[in-house]
């Protein structure tokens, strides 16, 4: 097995774990954590393909991963701000209880 396959399988496994968590957990914060894990798995794919690709000196996958980290950080800040705001209105972060859009 080539080393690239190992990295791709690891990324697929982390993506699946994050997806399972985002789909099954009730706490909104843990759903966000699952989304962060999925973004990280995608970053691992980008870096692995950059490392074993034909033109690593072009830095494309490297830069994509860097910008992806920045966008993920922005997403985490806004998402957690939304969770705090929802908690202030409804006094819960349980997603099974938050079933209406109207505050």
């Amino acid at each position, binding site marked *: 097995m080539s080393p*690239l396959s190992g990295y791709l399988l690891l990324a697929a496994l982390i*993506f699946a774990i994050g997806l399972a968590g985002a789909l099954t957990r009730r706490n909104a914060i843990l759903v966000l*954590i699952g989304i962060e894990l999925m973004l990280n798995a995608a970053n*691992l794919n980008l870096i692995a393909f950059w490392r074993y690709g034909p033109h690593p000196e072009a830095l494309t996958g490297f830069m994509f991963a860097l910008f992806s980290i920045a966008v993920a*950080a922005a997403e985490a800040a806004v998402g957690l701000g939304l969770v705090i705001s929802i908690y202030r209105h409804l006094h819960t972060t349980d997603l099974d209880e938050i079933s209406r859009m109207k505050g």
Partner: protein
Amino acid sequence: MIVFWILAVVTVAGALSAMLLRNVVHCALALTVAFAGLALEFLRLDAQFVGFAQILVYVGAVAILVVFAILLTRSSETPQTGVFSRTWLAGLVVAAAVFSVLAWAVLQSGAALPHESAAPQVTVAEVGNALMSRYVLPLEIVAVLLTAAMIGAVIVAMHEKKEAK
């Protein structure tokens, strides 16, 4: 290769416990382990700058943000009703299906994937030059995005005094 497997086991164990543990604070700690494992994988892939950016942004900032959110929303008390949603079986099936498709695709194309190649030498100076020349437009857009996200997060989470009265 043995280092890769050790790191992979640590990362997967961290990710699994982040999604399975009942106490949300423990989940945040396990998440930090998973992020650190991924950062070490980046370092092993000769992407030093991304690896250290991962440590700074994820292990440093995002983990702290998650802990703040947990403490501000009092999620640290374990709920009595169970931590998994009512539709957990469907979610698990979807995740398993996604993983099997991805793993099948990777294993099918195993022979076509490139094998060992020379480690690319990327210095921070090269990364800076690339960011300031070829990738300057994405860099500026990310700067605007981060500013907008910061202002948006503050406004969303800000306490509205008028409504409180």
